[in-house]
């Protein structure tokens, strides 16, 4: 495996970490508006209270790593997706504001507004990620200098919009299982019903997006011919999805959460399989950006791999410590949001 391929894998790892971790807190945000009553909304918000900020760091690091390892792909993708990325950043700031400021005043109007804003920004972030992933799957028109030649409306094709809604369903399901783990009593009973509803919504969107992908994105499965072993991940993905309702039914929510994490990891893997070795697929006659023509120099990739090898064990340790300190059911205290 050369260093460009290794960096493709490292980016996949960072994206997986981001999707699993921020996935549940974004999902909790999407569900937040359906929770009734200030006490329960605070519990919902505080279930992700100490965790969401750290989860977003995975996105920042993914961005930095993409910039460092594949600057051409970073530049092309970010400028091509200019407005979606701006909306994404806008929503991430709006979301941070909503979380930070919601409970700072007792007024019902104040809190009601921030509850809505928390919901809307969370849903928008996830939707835009889905649209971006859809565009990356399908490909965008590039010129000879790897500059995007399409328009803003061209990014909002039916396939990408379907992936956007699929992303919302994934996060809502993932978030509901997480919320179930963190809550008790009546709120938990309510969340139990949501786990089922979001699971079936996810299942329906999964079927739609799979069918659309097979019908309209033929290159998505091209790599399976070359590496048939990758079919194992597809099988594991189906098993993980099937295990979610089984575990919920058996009353083992932790197991359901692990299955949902595995499902997301498998989806990111399939996304990577659909792209590899491309990073930005060209839908025009000009060539795509691949891990080779978009990469930084070999010595830099090697050096950055060393930095990642030193850094990632530390990252895993901090993440472990924080999740361990904040394990157990969420309770409101004087440090809560």
């Amino acid at each position, binding site marked *: 495996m050369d260093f460009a391929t290794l960096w493709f894998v490292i980016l996949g790892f960072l994206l997986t970490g981001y999707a699993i971790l921020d996935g549940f807190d974004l999902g909790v945000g999407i569900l937040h508006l359906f929770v009734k009553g200030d006490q329960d909304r605070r519990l919902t918000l505080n279930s992700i209270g100490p965790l969401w900020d750290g989860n977003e760091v995975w996105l920042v690091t993914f961005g*930095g790593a993409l910039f460092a390892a594949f600057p051409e792909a970073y530049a092309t993708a970010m*400028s091509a997706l200019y407005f979606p990325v701006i909306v994404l950043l806008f929503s991430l700031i709006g979301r941070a504001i909503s979380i*930070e400021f919601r409970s700072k005043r007792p007024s019902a109007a104040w809190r009601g507004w921030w509850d809505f804003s928390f919901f809307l920004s969370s849903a928008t972030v996830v939707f835009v990620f889905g649209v971006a992933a859809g565009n990356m799957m399908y490909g965008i028109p590039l010129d000879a200098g790897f500059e995007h030649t399409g328009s803003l409306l061209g990014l909002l094709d039916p396939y990408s919009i379907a992936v956007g809604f699929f992303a919302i369903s994934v996060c809502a399901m993932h978030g509901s299982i997480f919320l179930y783990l963190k809550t008790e009593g009546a709120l938990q009973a309510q969340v139990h019903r949501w786990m089922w509803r979001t699971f079936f919504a996810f299942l329906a969107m999964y079927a739609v997006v799979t069918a659309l992908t097979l019908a309209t994105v033929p290159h998505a499965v091209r790599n399976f011919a070359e590496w048939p072993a990758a079919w194992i991940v597809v099988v594991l993905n189906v098993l993980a999805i099937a295990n979610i309702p089984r575990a919920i039914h058996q009353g083992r929510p932790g197991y359901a959460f692990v299955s949902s994490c595995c499902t997301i990891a498998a989806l990111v893997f399939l996304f990577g399989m659909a792209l590899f070795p491309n990073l930005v697929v060209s839908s025009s006659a000009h060539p795509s950006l691949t891990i080779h023509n978009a990469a930084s120099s070999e010595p830099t990739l090697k050096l950055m791999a060393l930095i990642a090898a030193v850094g990632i064990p530390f990252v895993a340790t901090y993440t472990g410590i924080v999740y361990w*300190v904040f394990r157990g059911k969420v309770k409101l205290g004087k440090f809560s949001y």
Partner: protein
Amino acid sequence: MDLDVVLLSRLQFALTIMVHYLFPPLSIGLGAQLVITEGLYLRTKDRRWEALARFWTKLFAVNFAVGVATGIVMEFEFGTNWATYSRFVGDVFGSALASEGIFAFFLESGFLAVLVFGWDRVGPKMHFFSTLMVFTGSVFSSVWIVIANSWMHTPAGYHLVEENGRMRAEITDFWAMCFNPSSMHRLGHVLLGAFILGAFFTMSISAWYVLKKRHEDLATRSFKVGLVMAALSSVAMLVSGHGQARALAANQPAKLAALEGHFHTGEGPTDLYIMGWPDRATETVHFGIALPGMLSFLVHDDFETPIPGLDQVPDDEEPPVLLPFLTYHVMVGCGMYFIGLTLFGLFMWWRGKLFTSRWLMWIFVGSVLLPYVANQAGWVATEVGRQPWIVYGLLRTADAVSRSVPTDQVLGSIALFSFIYLALVVLWVVVLNEKIKHGPEDPATLGPHAAEPFRDAAARLSLVSPHRLTGDDASDEEEE
């Protein structure tokens, strides 16, 4: 100049980076004070220090979260608006950014959770460790960002190669890239600026409590910590600023000439303007007050050697003069004010009149604005002074923008950012105000400490002998 993508992208970058830079320096400066305050608590076991640490942590948390949210924008804006730049520098600049993510950001944001939410979840030692890690992370963060930025001013450790039909910079020597000629000077300057801001921030709030006769016991303690830190940092800043100006004379003479409004090289020694209004058209400084020969002295330690003026710079490489001159002089003026005020404050402390001089306390309440001004002004001076280059001598700003992004989309994004940043700053002030009104808790009402969970876990795994656990510590298990 009409509204083209270059100008709009520059405006947007200026807006987003300036709003962002309201927050990280306070995180660093206040973080340093949290470390000192909690360290004093661990050492003295005086819970008044703990009450203070808890109070500053609340303000720190809001500031930090907003800093992260505005920081994510920066991480992606290079690609959205400056795609050509990103293609050119990704190998070098991207590496520094990615290192920041891996080494600094995870450290900060992970332990931030324990720092803010963990007071009753972990014991005092683990908490102190978390505070220390958050502070360390924020310093690491500044290291990598300053390295990346400094490379744009004084590129080193790279070579240019042709790739995909265009030139780009690639790292040849990682350490030379990191320790490029301006990075360490700039790092010291940035950190001291952050310490001064953090210290003035706590002094301002403490002085207000003293004036209102609230929490006086806590406020005077906190004020003294801030005053010592501010005085040390302000004096050190003089040394740092001097070193940076000398380095500037060697590395970016055009910028130095712009900062000093120095149009004509001349034969003799070069004067130093303390104030004035440079005029590009007539190449003079109006209303100028100058110290004769002082710039020559500061750069060369003699009153003879002339400093190269803007007449030595090719016309198409001349930076703007007015904005760098004014912002630079505002920054230096603020710096002098910090030295004067903090030394006077120390004198009054020694005379035992610090907290009884109400007028002085009022000055400290208002002075918190000036470190903000100084930090912003310093960056405007150095960044505008680098123009027309985005990477000094290698890539022009006008050539660095995204080619595929149309003007109306940049206008739209500026509108979006302006809206949310305005809301953000207003909310931040509102919430800050409420937290300040609420004030620190009474040290007598602070609850008992949680156990040290990692020591307990180690005991369960028989890493340390179980008899070291007290009955209280074991209560941690009930939660599970």
